[in-house]
């Protein structure tokens, strides 16, 4: 991963300096109030485009390099990548958030300027959403919990800020929003979610049917539980229904939401 950082740094483009080792990516349509904010600077690397909407004093280079590192790790973790992600940096966002690309364009992340140089602040979580949009209309519980799992695994394996056992223990409480899927991470180890994502990629036709935006919630939940079970090597339906109180017909949101 260190090599990837160096490549990203040297290959970065920047409208402000005119150094354009890579061709400038097109801008996304200004479809929200956040897009319409002034742009102080635009910078890009192989797979990440960053727009500074916050303050002219921000130097985008370090954040761009970190975001490219996150992208490279996540591409391997999820067995898929959208080719490019757009990152908006703003001073007015109430929280980090993301949205799928407009007209088939790259997914867009919106990260708060105050923590833009801190790679543990929404990088992995929001970028996972960006990577996951192409899987379909995921139920909230799954979309948010895989983003939490990716954050946890990135902290442990990529950024190495946390030790696995004590860090994962912080998720192992019934009032954690991702308690269910993080129980699976504890039970089946570091390779569990990469296996889930490989299955999601491999089952493209089935996935597109089951996770279509108009598909019934129960169809989505059954498909996702089947994938989670296959990755686990055992049927997880009893665990979800009896232990987690998971109702296939009605569970759309995460715990507590």
């Amino acid at each position: 991963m260190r090599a990837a950082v160096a490549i990203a740094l040297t290959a970065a483009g920047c409208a402000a300096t005119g150094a354009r080792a890579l061709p400038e990516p097109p801008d996304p349509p200004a479809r929200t109030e956040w897009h319409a904010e002034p742009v102080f600077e635009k910078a890009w690397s192989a797979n990440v485009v960053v727009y500074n909407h916050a303050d002219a004093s921000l130097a985008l280079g370090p954040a761009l390099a970190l975001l490219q590192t996150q992208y490279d790790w996540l591409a391997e973790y999820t067995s898929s990548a959208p080719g490019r992600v757009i990152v908006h940096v703003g001073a007015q966002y109430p929280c980090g958030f993301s949205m799928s690309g407009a007209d088939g364009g790259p997914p867009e992340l919106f990260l708060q300027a105050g923590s833009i140089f801190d790679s543990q602040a929404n990088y992995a979580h929001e970028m996972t959403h960006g990577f996951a949009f192409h899987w379909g209309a995921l139920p909230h519980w799954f979309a948010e919990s895989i983003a939490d799992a990716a954050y946890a695994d990135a902290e442990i394996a990529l950024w190495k800020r946390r030790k696995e056992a004590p860090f994962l223990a912080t998720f192992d409480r019934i009032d954690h929003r991702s308690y269910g899927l993080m129980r699976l991470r504890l039970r089946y180890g570091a390779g569990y979610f990469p296996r889930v994502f490989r299955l999601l990629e491999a089952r493209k036709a089935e996935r597109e049917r089951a996770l279509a935006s108009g598909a019934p919630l129960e169809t989505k939940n059954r498909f996702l539980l089947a994938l989670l079970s296959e990755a686990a090597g055992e049927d997880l339906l009893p665990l979800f229904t009896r232990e987690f109180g998971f109702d296939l017909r009605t569970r759309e949101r995460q715990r507590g939401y």
Partner: protein
Amino acid sequence: MKPFLPFLLLPLVAAPSPRFAAEDKDVVQDFSKPLAAPWSVTSKTWKVEGGELRGTGDGALDYAGPLGPDFTLTFRAKTSEKANVEVKLYDETGAKELYTFAFLGKYHSVLDGVKSCILKGERFVNVDPKTWIYPGRTFDLEVRRAKGQHQMFVNGALGPFFVDEAPPGGTQFRLKILVSCEGKDDAVVIDDVKIVAKK
């Protein structure tokens, strides 16, 4: 406004429970026989009939324990009219109310709705608007407690949950299942009470 459930019954049992260790085995009350210690009811209208506990109006089923700190309680409940079913956990003397797990079937003015909730002492610590109970249907209700973590389930679906960062001391508890009805003639049925101790 002080958050309280106005329908809650005061603890009626003040006599100390037998002082022996909480047993590490399951407790089943299927009402196939007349109630005997440590089980009792607080209302004269509540009686064991036809393999069920049947009654009219407000009342409570008391389990004087001993009950260990980690357990799963399941039971079935049905009411003929709108009513609230609550599980209350007390200290081993029965004098101090520790938690209330309320499966509401009546409108609650503080919560502004019919919801399930958990109280620690007299304070709400979690409310879930998606789970509630209603007349004419038998509900499978469940309360789990393990390592200071509490969960409620309605027909297997997760309701409120709460992690107590400062759980009360003590290793023995007792509990009650209370029902508060709208009218004194409203029918109540409770059955298949099971307490599985955490092994």
